[in-house]
């Protein structure tokens, strides 16, 4: 490291860096963060690219930025296949892969979470938290044009978020609930500056305004101010392609020449929606599609090892929670729950159910890709002898129970694998595989929360979508009285650690908390998480500059056709 670099870093630490920034630099220098984790953290806390490069030079690493995409051929139509949707395309109502994928082409977000779970600037060029992580200030990119020619500014951001936070039926409320922020907490503090004033500290707020919260599209203030007018307006956003036409079968988008990120190479993007995935996969094989956004690992087998196609696989934090109600027999005794967990041969289940397209789960939501996950937590392994001994000690050698679940995705196969695993330890497991609708409905017209099977049956398997941070899993599914706490787990020590985690800015504190929480979850085992999934898509090898997005966004600003 040269003298100038040292001088610049010391000056930055003395004059510009916040306490959070200095902690981050200390962790980097002490070797507690590897390069990738440092990049993630630096992006979350709003360090600029220049500063990040300087700090990496300071510790003797290469610059982080500067990679360029391969040259693109200009022109052509990209034909994309994705799943059909039934919900509204209005941003606040987005909840399905098909609709969010379409809306996310003309619409854009303040930040972007990439596949390494790093938060990148997007419509916001930088951001900073206050000291206690309750106020996040975003500086917006200048000169960004909407498709109607208007220049984006703070008014548009405030109006968009206020619309989304104001709707009772808004899907954004699962990521940004009223306990976190009110509509009035989104405040314009300058023509290109917006503050998010939170009710409690949050260490991951920039993730929450990225495309992972797919409702958070920035629309023009005049349109955002009038509910349900985005779609009739033609889905006016700032994205690389503007909508030309759309119906439930197909959407046609054409290049937006004033795109702030540079003129997109493609002329046109044609998105076709498929009710059934099989014809979509066949269409890719027949050359009628260039990209299929998502397919099952089984379907991707036809494309693997074939030079005419590329298969995109991204490890993600999506997983199935196998919850056991700790407040009911036969699961009151933690030894019984641990015994069930010990019957699972997880690598074998990943191979059989997912054809290898997954990563090990350790009965907690701490996906290995999360920087906050402590890597030293020991992985739980199959141990049938110990499982039998635990059942004997708990007086439950004749354990019998029913798993209630639904018939979609990998869930029924996983349930069958759990059933087979239990048999090896003498556990008699019945399966109640319901339709998706039945599983997520109230029973007999009763109160939803107290009757719906997925929150009330003694043992359930429920799928959870990918997140960039574990925050939502913790607050909703594990903390006492969490809205999706199907196991009814209630542990004040766990809650305390979760709150510590949510308010911790530095990685060391977060890992300390996750390690403690993981230990508690291994001991108490209210939920079994055998694996995390991998998002799989495929495309023709003539498609360049396309990267699969595990949320099912269709990111095509730099995509071209060979």
């Amino acid at each position, binding site marked *: 490291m040269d003298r100038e670099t040292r001088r610049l870093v010391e000056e930055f630490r003395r004059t510009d860096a916040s306490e959070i920034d200095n902690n981050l630099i200390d962790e980097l220098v002490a070797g507690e963060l590897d390069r990738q984790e440092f990049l993630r953290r630096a992006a979350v806390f709003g360090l600029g690219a220049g500063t990040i490069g300087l700090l990496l030079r300071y510790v003797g690493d290469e610059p982080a930025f500067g990679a360029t995409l391969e040259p693109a051929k200009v022109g052509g139509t990209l034909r994309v296949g994705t799943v059909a949707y*039934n*919900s*509204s*395309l*209005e941003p606040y*109502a987005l*909840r*399905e892969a098909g609709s969010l994928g379409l809306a996310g082409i003309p619409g854009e977000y303040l930040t972007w979470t990439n596949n390494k779970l790093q938060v990148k600037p997007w419509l916001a060029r930088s951001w900073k938290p206050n000291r206690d992580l309750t106020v996040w200030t975003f500086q917006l990119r200048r000169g960004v044009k909407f498709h109607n020619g208007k220049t984006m500014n703070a008014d548009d951001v405030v109006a968009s978020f206020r619309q989304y936070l104001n709707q*009772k*039926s808004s*899907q954004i*409320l*699962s990521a940004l609930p009223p306990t976190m922020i009110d509509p009035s907490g989104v405040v314009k503090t300058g023509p290109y500056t917006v503050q998010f004033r939170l009710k409690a500290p949050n260490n991951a707020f920039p993730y929450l305004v990225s495309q992972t919260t797919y409702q958070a599209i920035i629309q023009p203030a005049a349109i955002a101010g009038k509910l349900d007018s985005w*779609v009739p307006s033609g889905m006016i956003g700032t994205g690389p392609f503007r909508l030309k*036409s759309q*119906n*439930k*079968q*197909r959407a*046609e988008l054409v290049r937006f020449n004033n795109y702030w990120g540079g003129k997109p190479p493609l002329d046109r993007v*044609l998105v*076709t929606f*498929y*009710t*059934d995935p*099989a*014809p*979509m996969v*066949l*269409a890719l*094989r*027949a*050359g*009628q599609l260039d990209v299929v956004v998502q397919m099952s690992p089984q379907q991707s087998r036809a494309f693997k090892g074939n030079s005419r196609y590329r298969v995109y696989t991204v490890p993600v934090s999506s997983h199935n929670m196998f919850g056991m109600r700790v407040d009911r027999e036969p699961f009151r005794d933690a030894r019984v729950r641990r015994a069930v967990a010990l019957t699972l041969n997880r690598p074998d289940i990943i191979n059989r159910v997912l054809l290898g397209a997954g990563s090990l789960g350790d009965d907690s939501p701490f996906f290995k890709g999360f920087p906050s996950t402590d890597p030293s937590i020991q992985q739980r392994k199959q141990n049938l002898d110990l499982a039998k001994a635990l059942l004997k000690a708990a007086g439950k050698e004749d354990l019998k129970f029913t798993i209630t679940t639904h018939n979609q995705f990998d869930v029924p196969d996983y349930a069958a694998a759990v059933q087979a695993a239990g048999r090896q330890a003498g556990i008699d497991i019945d399966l109640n595989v319901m*339709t998706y*609708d*039945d599983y*997520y*409905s*109230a029973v007999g017209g009763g*109160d*939803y*929360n107290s009757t719906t099977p*997925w929150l009330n049956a003694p043992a359930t398997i429920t799928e959870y979508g990918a997140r960039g941070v574990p925050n939502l899993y913790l607050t909703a599914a594990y903390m006492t009285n969490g809205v999706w706490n199907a196991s009814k787990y209630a542990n004040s020590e766990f809650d305390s650690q979760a709150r510590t985690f949510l308010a911790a800015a530095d990685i060391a504190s977060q890992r300390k908390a996750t390690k403690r929480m993981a230990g508690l979850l291994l001991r108490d085992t209210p939920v079994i998480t055998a694996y995390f999934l991998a998002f799989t898509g495929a495309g023709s090898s003539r498609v360049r500059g396309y990267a699969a997005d595990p949320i099912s966004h269709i990111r095509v600003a730099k995509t071209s056709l060979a």
Partner: protein
Amino acid sequence: MARYIAKRVGLALVTLVLLSMIVFAAAQLLPGDLGRSVLGRDASAEAVAEYNHAHGTDRSAVVQYLDWASGLPRGDFGTSLVPPEEPVWDVIRPALLNSLKLAVFAFVLVVPFGLLGGVLSGLRAGKALDRGITVVGLSLAVVPEFVTGLVLILVLSIWAGWLPVTAQWEPGAGVVSQIQHLTLPAIALTLVLFGYVARITRAGVVEALDADYTRTAFLKGLPRNTVIRRHVLRNALLPTIAVVATQVGYLLGGLVAIELLFNYRGIGLTTLEAAQLKDYTVLAAGVLIIGFTYVVVTLVADIVSALLNPRIRFEASE
């Protein structure tokens, strides 16, 4: 004859009213509710209840039905209950048009091939050609249409690369492109229906060949072609009309598997999705239109049969 037609039309109307009632009642038995379907599992119970109330699905089925049915005399099918909450007719119309295009194409293919196969089979009854047509036709008829479609896709689309897999054409496509896109599903339907139509035609031809009037025609020395054209085919094709007519209803509304396989949004798929979403208004309208088609084509077939066969008129007037 007029009395016969009036009676049939009256019965058809009663059938349709009963059908709409049954659909509405059956829809109440479907699991889940509208608000949860639209807003998803993450929505609060309060938001779901509010959505259901705003769309009137928290009322009794009878009230909902009467509300919906009151618009029917004016041709108003109501509004779809799911976003973007378009008028039902705007949802149904493009799907119906798609279904009509495919039905017409398939009809144009299956009728001549089915009749030709049936006539040849009947005229060569008991011979190798007859056995060949019968075995092939019946074999194709018992294979589910999605299996036939899948084989066609693999052979004609993926291996040969001649035809598109997806039936839905690109925006602004011309007639030729539309026909190209519809060819695979139309062939799949033709293969499924061929055996059925040919079998009925064959039976008519064999019966007509054995009839007294045919024997008389031969005995009085008419040339074979004239006998077949004037006496055999004219009489043999009568029952075929009724059979083919019932298939029009199937071709229009019963193609869910084909529509799914070829990703073609017809009336069948639209109605199925409405059922899954608890979009009662679209569901009821879709079923009603499919039912209406069945009723009309059956009625037309009966009237044509009656016009061609005096015995039917006589029995009807009794």
